[in-house]
């Protein structure tokens, strides 16, 4: 569908596509195979200003909105979901600062991320707290002009590679979910180490590690907003970042659909390309339709956020939910269409299928996402009555 992007958006999308096709495409299989973090590609993206997109202008950024970010993530994901998530998680990592940080904090951290000098990451999840985020146990005890952190974060994207971490910790366990706070912790702070790099099913070029805090002293200035705001910061951050996961799912599905179409037109069986077989055509039709529907939802959500909508928790959740489930279906079908070849690592679709799975899981499993949506739907009904 023609989305009538502005000149600026077209330039942005075109640039992201160029980087994806010229730089990422030749190395994506190798990076996936070797589970290597794409530092060279990050540098390329940085020198093309791609990392400036999501930083406000006052802090050396280009002041792009959610939609701009989605356009970039989608183009990168079309070629490689693993590289795209390294980019997107970086944006996620600074989002709490952009939304709630003080001017001093923004001045300190944002320009460095804009230039690509340092990467960021966002950390909430722990071994005991996945969907049940309020069950986090990492504590931050106030001691003079520092907080002392103890605990472990799990499955953190960009963990170990990023240098700026926005972490949600318990500053006052007695207050329950109102006792959490968000802090910036920098790599290299004594008492802050990393666990081993996780071996994943997909997005293997992205780095996923535990963050280990042992009496890690963090200056009080690193507190984002106020004590007790931790989960609000987290929730508002995720509301804005979920369309990005949706965009990642869109891109992966788009790449898979294109691969399936190309293959179907070349693969000859029974004297005809398999694209002539109705069974295959129907699969392609379903894939294309769902993808388009998901795109419409993700784009509409991104645009409503940028236009200043006051609340968008439900839409954001829906966009992520629908797009990720769609991506899993589309990539699975793509493998099916390529059949035997699709199962082989010589062809790109099995990786796309492996990459798509995580979109149904992170930034809220789709089950917890459904809970959130249901709550909003019921709230609405309750309000109407």
């Amino acid at each position, binding site marked *: 569908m023609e989305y009538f992007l502005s000149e600026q958006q077209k330039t942005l999308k075109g*640039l992201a596509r160029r980087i994806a096709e010229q730089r990422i495409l030749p190395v994506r299989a190798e990076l996936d195979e070797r589970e290597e973090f794409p530092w060279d590609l990050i540098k390329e993206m940085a020198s093309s200003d791609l990392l400036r997109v999501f930083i406000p202008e006052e802090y050396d950024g280009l002041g792009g909105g959610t939609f701009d970010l989605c356009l970039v993530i989608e183009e990168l994901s079309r070629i490689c979901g693993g590289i795209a998530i390294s980019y997107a998680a970086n944006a996620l990592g600074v989002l709490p600062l952009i939304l709630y940080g003080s001017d001093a904090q923004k001045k300190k951290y944002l320009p460095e991320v804009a230039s690509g000098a340092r990467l960021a990451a966002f950390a909430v999840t722990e071994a005991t707290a996945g969907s049940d985020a309020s069950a986090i146990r990492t504590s931050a005890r106030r001691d003079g002009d520092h907080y002392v952190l103890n605990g472990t974060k799990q499955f953190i994207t960009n963990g170990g590679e990023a240098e700026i971490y926005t972490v949600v910790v318990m500053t006052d366990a007695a207050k329950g979910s109102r006792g959490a706070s968000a802090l910036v912790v920098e790599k290299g702070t004594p008492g802050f180490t990393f666990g081993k790099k996780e071996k994943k099913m997909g997005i293997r070029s992205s780095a996923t590690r535990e963050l280990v805090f042992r009496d890690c002293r963090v200056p009080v200035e690193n507190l984002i907003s106020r004590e007790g705001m931790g989960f609000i910061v987290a929730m508002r951050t995720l509301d804005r970042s979920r369309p990005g996961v949706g965009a990642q799912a869109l891109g992966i599905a788009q790449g898979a659909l294109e691969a399936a179409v190309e293959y179907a037109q070349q693969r000859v069986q029974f004297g005809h390309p398999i694209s002539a077989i109705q069974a295959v055509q129907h699969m392609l039709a379903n894939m294309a339709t769902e993808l388009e529907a998901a795109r419409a939802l993700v784009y509409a959500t991104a645009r409503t956020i940028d236009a200043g909508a006051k609340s968008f928790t439900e839409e954001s959740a829906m966009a992520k939910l629908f797009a990720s489930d769609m991506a899993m279906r589309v990539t699975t079908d793509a493998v099916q269409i390529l059949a035997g070849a699709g199962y082989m690592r010589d062809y790109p679709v099995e990786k796309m299928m492996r990459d798509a799975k995580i979109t149904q899981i992170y930034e809220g499993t789709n089950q917890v996402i459904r809970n959130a949506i249901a709550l909003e739907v019921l709230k609405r009904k309750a309000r109407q009555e």
Partner: protein
Amino acid sequence: MNVVVCIKQVPAKIKIEIDPKTGTLRSGGVDRAINPPDLYALEEGIRIKEKTKGKVTVLTMGPAKADESLKEAIGFGADEVILLSDPAFEGSDTWSTSHILAKAIKKIGQFDLVLCGKQSIDGETGQVGPQLAEALGVPFVSLVNRIEELGEGFIKVMRMSDEGHQLIEMTLPGVITVVKEINVPRIPSLRGLMAAKKAKIPVWNAQDLEIDPATVGSAGSPTRVAKVFFPQRTQKSEMLQGSPESQVEQIVERLRQARAI
């Protein structure tokens, strides 16, 4: 170092059609782009400018639409761009093109090095580089795949030859053509691209260049295209039928008869 890079805007896809009525190329609605081999020249030029804190001027000869390519060059980092355009230039062969470029470069004034791509993907002659050098009266080296040293008044380059490579020293000012192996062109930055979109592109015509229209373009080019046609395969494809063994027998027989093997 003052570097001049000559680029050409070409069709992005090379599948072309001839209008059956007029016998001329159907060029409407075709996406145009910077000739891919020229990107390597452009990138090398920008790198030299960055290393020597110099200046890059990018020239192109073409119709008004060619300004899009110059805008892209700005996105890459070109300091100055100039479009050489005039109805009189149309129908130029490579001799005419190189003379027009030479006039423009002389008008620009001082330059140390001119960089060109190996050849264009449409004309594919690879002639403009050497002809430009001769028209400027400066030395020329082709197929450069690495610049080894840049100094005051000289350049040392590695070039590809029939047997391998040659290390050549050339005095400056001079002209070189470069090959893909020389670098990996950067991806322009967003800010560069956005600024480029707003840029005003200067245009020099025949009068600005003091060129007599009769000496260039279709009027003055030494060579002329007498006819353009689709290559006709003298015979239609012969599809060999039968079992694999039979097909192999048939092809070997055909190739033997044609003395190909």
